[in-house]
């Protein structure tokens, strides 16, 4: 049995300060609605992960924040500027790992490409770029067109990090990386965060890969947010309850609209519920359920629960 109610998770993060906001952001490609009244709030200094399935609007959103896609409705502020008017200025302050793998010009060497960046970014740290490149094991004499998918990703990460920008927009940054390089990348990002205060937006449909870095979570589906909240709030407020119940048990009515996902067997239930742990446990117990275990969900599991509840409607 699957519940079809979409539980209301919080979307408003309060008063900021925010590095990035959008209000009622809408973008349509022909008749397809990519972004549908999106209210994004990325707190300054936060690592914000944007989770959602392919086609949810993640890449369109990131390209809009970069000023590479023009939006039709709403308002956007990136580091206090509207990327639609001041795209070049905004892009100079952003470290971007794009969805696309290709880097630079095919004939250019990696060393030349890295040297080239100093022109666009006054804060380019050539020594840091060299260290990252060496750590990633990329020979500077390699021509860009000879790089594999994973090697291009590594070069893109060096390009994004080495000017120590106040904002990093990383679109599927671990895509194409093998286990060892992915692990190295997480270590590099941890050190980068410790050394350079920065706001990070990571878009991914594989959140488990970056989960230990995350402060805030936004779950995106069909161009809208299903929830936007601090990771600790998600961790404390969206919980899975296992309980033994009498045959034919229906559950307490007061939890209606809070059950994100339910899976019922004959005499046992496994519910994912948004709400205060003690209140939910009390509600279940008073309705005759014997609660055996309550456990938090990983961000990955939480996103999956929210997204599948959405699909069931």
């Amino acid at each position, binding site marked *: 049995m699957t519940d079809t109610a979409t539980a209301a998770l919080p979307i408003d993060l309060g008063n900021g300060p925010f590095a990035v906001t959008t209000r009622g952001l809408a973008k349509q490609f022909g008749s397809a609605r990519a972004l549908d009244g999106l209210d994004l709030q990325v707190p300054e200094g936060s690592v914000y992960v944007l989770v959602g399935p392919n086609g949810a609007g993640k890449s369109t959103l990131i390209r809009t924040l970069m000023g590479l896609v023009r939006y039709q409705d709403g308002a956007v502020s990136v580091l206090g500027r509207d990327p639609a008017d001041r795209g070049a200025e905004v892009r100079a302050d952003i470290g971007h790992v794009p969805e696309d793998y290709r880097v630079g010009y095919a004939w250019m060497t990696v060393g030349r490409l890295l040297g080239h960046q100093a022109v666009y970014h006054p804060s380019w740290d050539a020594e840091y770029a060299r260290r990252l490149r060496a750590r990633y094991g990329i020979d500077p004499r390699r021509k860009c067109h000879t790089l594999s998918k994973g090697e291009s990703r590594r070069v893109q990460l060096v390009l994004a990090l080495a000017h120590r920008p106040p904002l990093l927009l990383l679109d599927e940054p671990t895509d194409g990386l093998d286990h060892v390089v992915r*692990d190295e990348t997480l*270590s590099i990002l*941890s050190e980068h965060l*410790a050394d350079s205060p920065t706001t990070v937006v990571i878009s991914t449909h594989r959140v488990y890969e970056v989960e*230990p*870095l995350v*402060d805030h979570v936004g779950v995106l589906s069909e161009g809208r947010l299903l929830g936007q909240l601090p990771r600790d709030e998600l961790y404390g407020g969206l919980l899975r309850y296992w309980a033994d119940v009498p045959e034919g048990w229906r559950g307490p009515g007061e939890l209606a609209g809070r059950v994100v996902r339910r899976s019922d067997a004959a005499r046992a239930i496994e519910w994912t519920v948004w709400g205060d742990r003690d209140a939910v446990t009390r509600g279940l117990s008073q309705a005759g359920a014997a609660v*055996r*275990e309550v456990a938090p969900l*990983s961000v990955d599991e939480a996103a999956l629960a929210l997204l599948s509840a959405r699909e069931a409607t």
Partner: protein
Amino acid sequence: MKIRLSHADGRPLYVQIMDAVRSGLVRGSLRPADPLPSVRELSSSLRVNPRTVSQAYAALERDGLVRVRHGKGTFVAPGVRPEEKERPRLAREVARRALADASRNGLALADLMTALREVEGGDAHGDGRKEDGR
């Protein structure tokens, strides 16, 4: 200091780091005035957000277990006596987890206590047989 984080664990990451420091104190692998790894080192080796490590260190400092000396790093507080406070506290935490595990399996406290004594006495099967058939 060896720390192993588990994402399947019910405790938030910063609490897992705090508990690892506590257990180091109780086991004696961390002693008063010992340095802890820097926030940068520990977050890099655990692949976590440096804020999570800072959060753990700040909470440990509030509990009086560590002292943050600006520009020098984080150290175990000189006056810490793990036997008095940390040992019973860690024991309670382990007991809480054991009880939760028992309750998940439909067992009561009495079942758990009986089984603990039997296992500790080497009678793992509760029928006089020793563990491993010895």
